[in-house]
């Protein structure tokens, strides 16, 4: 019986804590020298992205599917909440050669 309790206790420790797993995260994406920096590999609805524009130029983070359009004047930091799952291509609408992809799972 004691062994069974021990096994149950060990199993409980291995289970993810629901509240911790659901806690949203904030990730930072830096724009510097006309490029978007790395985006988070693990991104879920409810998480946030803090866009940080380190350039002296005005940029934007604009989704191809129109799900977001964040204006980023020089030096700006703007936080946005990721809403829906999906693979979202984004560009700077002022400099369309700057691009990236958010993979929301």
């Amino acid at each position, binding site marked *: 019986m004691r062994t069974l309790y021990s096994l149950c206790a060990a199993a409980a420790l291995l289970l993810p804590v629901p509240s911790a797993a659901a806690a949203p995260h904030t990730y930072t994406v830096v724009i510097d020298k006309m490029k978007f920096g790395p985006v988070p590999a693990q991104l879920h609805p409810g998480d946030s992205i803090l866009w940080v524009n380190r350039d*002296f130029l005005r940029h934007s983070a604009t989704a191809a599917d129109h799900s977001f359009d964040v204006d980023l004047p020089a030096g700006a930091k703007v936080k946005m909440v990721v809403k829906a799952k999906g693979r979202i291509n984004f560009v700077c609408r002022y400099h369309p050669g700057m691009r990236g992809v958010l993979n929301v799972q």
Partner: protein
Amino acid sequence: MKLTFALPAALLVMAAPAMAAAGPTDPQIAHIAYTAGSIDIAAGKQALARSHNKAVRGFAEEMVRDHKAVNDKALALVKKLHVTPEDNATSQALTKGAAAERAKLAKLSGAAFDREYVNNEVAYHKTVNGALENTLIPSAKNGELKSLLETGLTLFREHLAHAEMIAKGLT
């Protein structure tokens, strides 16, 4: 358009080898970069005053905004580095060519103006980007100046792609 632009383009090419012996100095590079930006800001303002084409006006606004941002950054940098930009043959060639182009554009209106402005922007960015890539960036000694020029080149390549896209729509 091609004739008026051929002059500064040729002079730019001629000036570059002359400087290449010793290479343009940082004060000369700063002057060339600032002059090139000022020319495009002026051209953008001229387009905003004369063009009614939405795409052309959007492009002109982008040129004024971006080149002003680069020039403001360049001014702050030379001040910080205690560098005085030095006038030179390349800057003078650019200014001379720009004056001729400005006079030519002043005589045009409507679609003719739009075509001339955008086609010249394509040629101008090709010339300036070539000078940045082949002469100015390799010659820059100061790391911050070099970095600014590199960011500028990335930006101006965007401008060139945008101008070429608009030019296709105008033909």
